[in-house]
């Protein structure tokens, strides 16, 4: 695997994946794990790391690029994301804001916020179900703690550090 090939792989998979960066996971796994460039364990760890850090969920691409080719691989894989996204931004730039402000378009997009609420809850469900099945109380405990912390206006970094610490403490305890 060369840097140029990694860049083209990420950019091409990304360009074909509609619905977000997560849609290219299967293609990346097929090419990198199937091709023997990284181990299944490194791939799974990269995905978990990318999804539990802040920012775009597609940050897993950086982690997987690092696992495959080190720091240059991480930078090149991230560049593959940005290039495709800038293409999408270019396309979106052609749509005048006046178009979004037409009553009929606003009528169509008025139901987008409730849809995003559904998507948020679905992603949460998927993350919980993807975890350990042997200790089902662990996600319930952490999720409930974070939700209560959010209601009490605890800052997000503090909540995440708390969740991280709880995960470490409970791993040690059990």
């Amino acid at each position, binding site marked *: 695997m060369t840097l140029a090939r990694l860049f083209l792989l990420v950019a091409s998979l*990304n360009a074909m994946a*509609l619905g*977000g*960066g*997560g849609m290219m996971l299967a293609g990346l796994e097929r090419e990198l794990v199937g091709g023997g460039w990284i181990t299944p364990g490194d791939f799974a760890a990269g995905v978990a*790391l990318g*999804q539990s*850090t*802040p*920012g*775009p969920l*597609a*940050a897993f691409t*950086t982690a997987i690029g*690092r696992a495959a080719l080190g720091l240059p691989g*991480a930078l090149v894989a991230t560049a593959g*994301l*940005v290039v*495709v*996204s*800038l293409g*999408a931004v270019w*396309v*979106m730039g052609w749509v005048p*804001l*006046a*178009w*979004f*402000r037409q*009553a*009929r378009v*606003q*009528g169509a*997009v*008025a*139901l*987008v*916020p*409730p*849809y995003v*609420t*559904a*998507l*948020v*809850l*679905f992603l*949460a*469900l998927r*993350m919980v179900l*993807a*975890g350990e099945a042997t200790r089902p109380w662990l996600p319930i405990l*952490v*999720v409930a703690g*974070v*939700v209560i912390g959010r*209601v009490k206006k605890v800052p*997000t970094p503090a909540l*995440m550090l708390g969740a*991280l610490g709880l995960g470490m*403490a409970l791993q040690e305890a059990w």
Partner: protein
Amino acid sequence: MLRLWRIVRMGLWLGATVFGGVAAAYPRVRERCAELGNLTPEDVDGLYSLAVVLPGPSFLNLWGAVCARAGGWAGAVVGQVALLLPAMVLVLGLPLLAQVPWFAAHGHGALLGATYGTAGLLVATGIDGLRKQGDRVGLAVTVFGLGALVGGVHPVLVLGLVLVGGALRFARGGVAHDAGKAVSAGRQP
């Protein structure tokens, strides 16, 4: 220059504090879009719909489009880099900790805790979204969307159905709340 700095600052803030991708970022971008230019929350709704159906990570697409409206191509590029930077630092830096024996022993638990923590933040964002929905239609769309996504329907297809539903609702005279507000405010061209 001041606008670019504002884009960088907000990009870093979003990149460092939003867990869970575009779905978690969308309410925050919608709330604070006015700080970057003449964007309205309804513009963000439209850009979000395009960001999801176009190729590329939806979060990068949405944020890049918002930044491009505020600061042109330079704004889009610096905005996307600022958004990615916190995650890159963590993704590249955290594996170094695995070389320290204590962290290596607790790494799995930490990663699990962080994943469930992200799920918790998403649940909190979802509850917040449910509270802000003023009518039964919004709740029905959320229930329908959740059911379809759990049932394995592709997110872009679900979004397409939601957009068609919104358009039909508008055509039948059930002017959506936000659209009604926008029209009454005289923002329709």
